[in-house]
């Protein structure tokens, strides 16, 4: 009966795994709702600051911010990779990292130097294994990302850009499409492209205000514009982070659901095998008894 005990143990262990995956599925489902809410709440800020930045680029400002100026030579590229802190969320991190890796190879082939900023520990682990040049990182953001923890890491990248250490900055993250679908995307962060700077009014095609006016600045144009631009880029990164978190939770929910289902199937199958072997053992025993009795 050694075989049947083994099967019984296997069933027990699969059942335990299933309990864990089911619990994780439910946790992810409730976190997903919150993460999606946060993602939606972050949108108005992004929209408004985009409007302000668009107004500003139309205005006749005496000072043009470096983020807005296209550079001709491209030698060094800054990359921001947004990943999750925890695994067990299907192919989510793998997809975005593969996307990043492909682009990085391409850039390297063109002889460009790369510097990486990692948001989330999965990306950090991957990049340090790659021996990429990681200049800053944020990990352990938890379920509620806050702007405060992003500022530092982002500033390193933005400073690098203003100091001409790199000429372009890209961001990689998972865009949330719906619960079943997330898409790894690459977006150009700096220099800010014009199509990103369109305000809502212009996109709707109504009155585009004539150039030639300027703001009153308090205290001065430069620090105020600097502040706005930094906040704008931070808002873009924050939005990418909230999208990635919503993607993470939904991907985890789906992956854990699949794992629980698989475990269920395996348990059914093992139970069938167990019953068969048990019955076979009983039949064998019976026939032995019967034939033994007949022999007497």
């Amino acid at each position, binding site marked *: 009966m050694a075989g049947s005990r083994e099967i019984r143990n296997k069933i027990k262990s699969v059942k335990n*795994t299933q309990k864990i995956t089911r619990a994780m599925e439910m946790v992810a489902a409730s976190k997903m709702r919150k993460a999606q809410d946060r993602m939606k709440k972050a949108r108005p800020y992004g929209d408004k600051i985009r409007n302000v930045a668009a107004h500003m680029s139309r205005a006749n400002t005496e000072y043009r911010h470096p983020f807005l100026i296209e550079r001709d030579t491209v030698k060094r590229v800054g990359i921001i990779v947004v990943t999750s802190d925890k695994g067990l969320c299907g192919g989510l991190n793998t997809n975005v990292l593969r996307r990043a890796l492909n682009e990085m190879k391409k850039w390297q082939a063109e002889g460009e130097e790369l510097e990486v900023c990692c948001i989330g520990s999965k990306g950090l682990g991957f990049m340090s294994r790659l021996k990429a040049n990681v200049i800053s990182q944020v990990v352990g953001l938890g379920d509620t990302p806050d702007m405060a923890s992003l500022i530092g890491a982002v500033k390193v990248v933005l400073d690098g850009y203003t100091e001409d250490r790199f000429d372009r900055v890209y961001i990689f993250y998972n865009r949330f499409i719906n619960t079943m679908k997330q898409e790894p995307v690459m977006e150009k962060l700096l220099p800010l492209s014009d199509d990103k700077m369109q305000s809502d009014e212009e996109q709707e095609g109504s009155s585009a205000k004539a150039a030639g006016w300027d703001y009153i600045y*308090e205290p001065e144009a430069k620090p105020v514009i600097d502040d706005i631009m930094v906040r704008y880029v931070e808002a873009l990164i924050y939005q990418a982070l909230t999208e990635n978190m919503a993607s993470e939770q939904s991907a985890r929910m789906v992956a854990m659901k699949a794992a629980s289902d698989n475990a269920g199937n395996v348990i059914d199958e093992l139970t069938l095998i167990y019953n068969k072997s048990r019955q076979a053992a009983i039949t064998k025993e019976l026939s032995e008894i019967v034939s033994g009795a007949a022999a007497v």
Partner: protein
Amino acid sequence: MGTVFHLDIVSAEESIYSGPVEFLVAPAQMGEVGIYPRHTPMLTRIKSGMVRIKAQLKEEELVYVSGGMLEVQPDVVTILADTAIRSHDLDEAKAIEAKRAAEEAIKDRASELDYAKAQAELMEAVSQLAAIEKLRKRRH
């Protein structure tokens, strides 16, 4: 039009106020500013403090903001509220911290080992299940 303007107060984490407003007082960096409709375009930093909002046919409202930016257009006013306490030195310190953490993480990854180990075990169990499932499908 003309007697009201649209006000939005947003922070990165949520939208705080949105609606037509008659009059507004905000704590700008150089002192409080009062804004009526058709104000000339203005861009300024604001300090942490109360924003007083007077909407039509309503009592005056007070909203707290922890600093940020104020943009005035003739009929739209936007306050971009910060969610974090910001100053140049503080930002600089955070940047240095983030850099240091990056350097340290490359050197030493032992602290995450326990969590990683537990996770790797679970991962293995899950992938085993997936493999068994695949085998089973092939057999039938």
